[in-house]
């Protein structure tokens, strides 16, 4: 197996402890939970997506565990501005606040609450299952560019997370780049549904949800590969990563770092597990690996 050398990592303007970040919405609702994941080996953490107003989220069921993935429709539950107090004790740690809003002004307002208190922002333009939010913006290049610019204007590192639920993800990636994004995160969940044959209705309260976990890994690798060919800013690969070999594969597709979400379900210590396989003192330099599948 290919392994890489440990060492300092900076991606999209953010200094990380290693190449592995906790993905948005996974154990990211409280400061102490994020802190626990950092102490369990995450090189950085992304918070639950925070919006302009508090939201309770969708009625349950919110989540279904499948053979090879997770189907969820949480509905962006979040405490809004009160979250500032949650992350305050984590100042100076590699914490990215995930932000969502209905328009550029809302994105800017939420970002303003956290300026100077976190390492950077990740814009959730891509949540596929909340009315008027998320995918409605993330599928429109003009809006993506405007929302990105509204936040990147703060000068704080701004990562933009993309939905795979579009015909051409590169047009959205390029829009984020024009808006001043310092990195692109790909991907959010893939729109999906399961039906309970016993109860004769969709298994989620919201009926539609987003698929994550191993099942979407090939989709995520394809998206990262396409974005690497068309964008210059760094890419953070996300979607179905659950082993060191998956991390290497994402890097070969073009990712400078990865985010891990669903794999936490089976192993809350997944970061330590992957790190011990991924890093070797005599491993290759990450530079030699990132994007290498594009050559030749």
């Amino acid at each position, binding site marked *: 197996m290919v392994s890489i050398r440990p060492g300092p990592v900076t991606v999209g303007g953010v200094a990380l402890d290693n190449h592995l970040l906790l993905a948005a919405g*996974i*154990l990211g*609702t409280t400061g102490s939970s994020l802190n626990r994941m950092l102490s369990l080996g995450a090189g950085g953490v992304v918070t639950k997506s925070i919006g302009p107003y508090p939201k309770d989220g969708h009625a*349950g*069921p919110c989540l279904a565990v499948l053979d090879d993935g997770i189907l969820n429709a949480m509905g962006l539950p*979040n405490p809004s501005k009160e979250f500032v107090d949650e992350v305050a004790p984590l100042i100076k740690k590699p914490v990215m606040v995930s932000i969502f809003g209905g328009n550029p002004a809302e994105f800017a307002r939420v970002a303003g609450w956290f300026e100077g208190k976190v390492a950077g922002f990740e814009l959730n333009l891509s949540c596929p299952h909340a009315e008027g939010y998320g995918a409605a913006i993330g599928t429109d290049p003009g809006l993506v560019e405007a929302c990105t610019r509204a936040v990147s204007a703060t000068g704080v590192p701004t990562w933009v997370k993309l939905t795979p639920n579009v015909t051409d993800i590169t047009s959205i990636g390029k829009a984020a780049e024009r808006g001043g994004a310092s990195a692109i995160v790909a991907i959010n969940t893939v729109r999906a549904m399961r039906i309970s044959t016993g*109860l004769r209705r969709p*298994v989620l309260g919201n009926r539609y949800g987003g698929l994550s976990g191993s099942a979407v890994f090939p989709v995520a690798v394809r998206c990262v590969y396409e974005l690497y060919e068309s964008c210059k800013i760094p890419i953070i690969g996300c979607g179905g990563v659950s082993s060191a070999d*998956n991390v290497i594969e994402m890097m070969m597709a073009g990712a400078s770092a990865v985010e891990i979400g669903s794999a936490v379900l089976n*192993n809350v210590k997944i970061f330590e597990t992957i790190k011990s396989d991924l890093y070797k003192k005599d491993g290759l330099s990450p530079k030699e690996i990132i994007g290498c599948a594009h050559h030749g």
Partner: protein
Amino acid sequence: MPTMDDSLSVPVTILRVRKETSLIRTFVLDRSFPFSPGQFVMVWVPGIDEIPMALSSENTITVQKAGDATTAMFALGAGDKLGIRGPFGNGFTKGEKVLAIAGGVGAAPLLPLARADCVMTLLLGAKTESELLFVDQLDECTDVFIATDDGSLGFGGFVTALMDDLNLGVYDRIAVCGPEMMMRAVLAKVEEKGIAHKTEFSLHRYMKCGSGICGSCCIDPSGLRVCRDGPVFSGDLLLKSEFGHYMRDASGRKKNL
């Protein structure tokens, strides 16, 4: 990667509904779920919501009317369907001489513990006599002492006062489930006696996924997940924590108790 278990909700049919008190009913299901006492399931009330409920036996849940989903359940009867995910969580640690302390619907997860034949003594509390849960079933399997807030049966006052009449040194474990303020009072008492480490509390926090991934049930300052690392926690872990002080609502905002 290690494969995830396909654990879509299992459809179950309600066989019977038993009225326990004016506010509490037991739903008997047509399927059994092997479990350890203290574990819970996520109960899907179709069209309404999905909520956590302790198993009161392999095929029953015992539900107190609280809000939307539980009220909707009270309208269900024999033949109606629910979805069940689980069991989840850790359950109570086994002991040989257990003291169990139950308040209100908190008796639900403690009944199967008492039936497992390890509970020497059980302290049962409720607001008033008619709200006492499982008096007869518990009497059959353990030594029960009763307290009611209004004194309508047993000791008049909080169930914690009954602890003063016991030699707590006799028990190797203490298992507690009930309203959080009552559990906090028990924690203060066992801390004073230096036995917080052998006392376990079953916690209630807002649960959305029940699977340990969404973060809605995490407690401060450990960041542990009530649905996965709990719901049963040792007293010494709860001493300097949010327990008894605040919890978070569905949005994640703190609410003082």
